[in-house]
């Protein structure tokens, strides 16, 4: 890598081999900053974590090698199984509800002229609010005696006042997901909107000349037009769903009685509260492996099926 400026030099048309070598070098140079910080901050420590996952490290004393013990223990850990199930449910929810709402919001916004700015602002504002703050708002709203349920109860919907979503093991995870969705879907909306703006307008004109309805227009022009963004957000949603931490930690810390435990809260508890950094690392490694497998699986399928993204 001794040719810093080569890639930016004009490529003479005649010597194509040299030109392509130049573009290859330019490509590597353009990727350099990305990889430098990434390896330093993320990949490096991750390698350490893989090492720690084979030890009994407690965060303080020197780690001792224990082989696969942590992974064996993980396989028999009920909390781990609950957490994994919750992460899967979370993934399903976030692949459907916020994605759907984001697409709908973005599409509707492309269809109007008046009030566009206002709506965009309103949809996006929740994303600006810090997690701690939105968690505190929703904790109040979901309070059975004084929140929404309480008000509905006073207006003749008595069963609404009996729902204590965050305190009920069967409902708590759904409640946290709804709260997270409130903040999240506007963000997806914005990304979809930016992508929809990049769709060639002449395609719409053509469709309109063909007399296509709104639905067909959306299905045949908008969706294919934003497919790269859509697929990318689909993959990121899977990844993020396995990493979810903030809302669960702030709202229930995995409770009641472990009902909303997810992998990252379990990791956090093991590594920090219970001082089992080795075991925590093993959870982290498995977490990353699962979502990496899902993503790779998708990419392989895509190549097999010949999809063009």
């Amino acid at each position, binding site marked *: 890598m001794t040719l810093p400026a080569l890639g930016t030099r004009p490529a003479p048309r005649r010597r194509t081999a040299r030109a392509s070598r130049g573009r290859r070098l330019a490509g590597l140079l353009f990727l350099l900053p*990305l990889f430098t910080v*990434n390896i330093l901050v993320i990949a490096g420590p*991750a390698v350490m974590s893989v090492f720690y996952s084979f030890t009994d490290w407690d965060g303080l004393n020197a780690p001792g090698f224990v082989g696969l013990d942590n992974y064996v223990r993980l396989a028999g850990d009920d909390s781990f199984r609950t957490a994994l199930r919750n992460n899967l449910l979370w993934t399903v929810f976030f692949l459907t509800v916020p994605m759907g709402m984001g697409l709908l919001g973005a599409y509707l916004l492309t269809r109007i002229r008046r009030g566009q700015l206002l709506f965009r602002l309103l949809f996006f504002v929740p994303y600006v609010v*810090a997690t701690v*703050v939105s968690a505190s708002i929703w904790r109040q709203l979901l309070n059975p005696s004084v929140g929404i349920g309480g008000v509905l109860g006073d207006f003749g919907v008595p069963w609404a006042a009996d729902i204590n979503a965050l305190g009920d093991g069967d409902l708590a995870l759904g409640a946290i997901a709804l709260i997270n969705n409130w903040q999240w879907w*506007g963000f997806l909306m914005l990304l979809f*909107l930016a992508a929809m703006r990049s769709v060639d307008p002449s395609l719409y004109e053509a469709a309109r000349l063909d007399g296509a309805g709104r639905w067909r227009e959306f299905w045949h022009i908008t969706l294919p037009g934003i497919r790269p*963004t859509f697929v*990318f957000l689909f993959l990121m949603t899977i990844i993020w769903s396995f990493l979810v931490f903030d809302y669960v930690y702030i709202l229930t810390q995995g409770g009641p009685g472990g009902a909303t435990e997810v992998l990252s809260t379990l990791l956090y508890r093991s590594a920090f509260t219970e001082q089992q950094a080795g075991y925590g690392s093993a959870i982290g490694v498995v977490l990353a492996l699962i979502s*990496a497998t899902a993503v790779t699986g998708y990419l392989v399928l895509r190549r097999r099926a010949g999809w063009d993204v």
Partner: protein
Amino acid sequence: MSAPRSRPARNWGVYGLLLLLAAYAAGPMLVLLLSAVKTPAEISANPLSWPAELQWDNFATAWVDASMGTGLLNSAVIVLSTAGGVCVIACCGAYALVRLDVPKPGVVMLYLLVVSTLPIQLSLVPLLSWWTTLGLYDTQFGLIVIYWALYSPFATLLLRSYLIAIPPEYEAAARIDGAGELRVFTRIVLPLLWPGVLTAALVSGLQAYNEFIIAVTFIQDSEALPASIALFSFQQGYATNYALVSAAGSIMVLPMLLLFLALQRRFVSGYTSAGMAN
């Protein structure tokens, strides 16, 4: 500005749905503003009620007690540096992936996706000791580098997805005219990619703005801490004064809202205007 022109104003359904979504988004925001001017006891008793007396003092108390002035200035440095750095890193990366001859771009993409799956909680301890060795511990720059690394994979992949949608013909023309890669990138690609770049900047800036776990772990000098930490300074024994949190939270929303509004127009330009310029 394309779709509605030729359609008659049969948009009641559209507006109805939009209003419904807006109510969902804005309702809790109103509760936030209301909580910011109540007493903690009033919030506990009824979060939806109008306060007996508007507690404007909450804003002043929150501002002073959590040193939000210093915090917001620090946040400005951190957020702008994060957003700027992430955009530079991600633009270069995305451009290389889509338009330059990178060996096995699929593998690079896969790498970026896979590193996104790693939980940050795992990295805290090794990172802390490395940062100490490198002299980056307890500095804002050290924190900013971490944010660059954390937020650039997503931004790169996001920009990549926007870049794919832009037809390569424009650049091909420029390249045939003998323009270098950097020139092609800044003159041709960047204007087309601008909405995407702004989105990436906004997203990474916002994440940095609201992030606190890494900030409190890596910065000990209270004069250098960002504003997000303010939300954690209203302790009341083992609980938190939610009136002050709401006040501080509202104050924190404001600058980002203004920034978002200021950037609005830029979002609108994009394909169309750049296309016309060509």
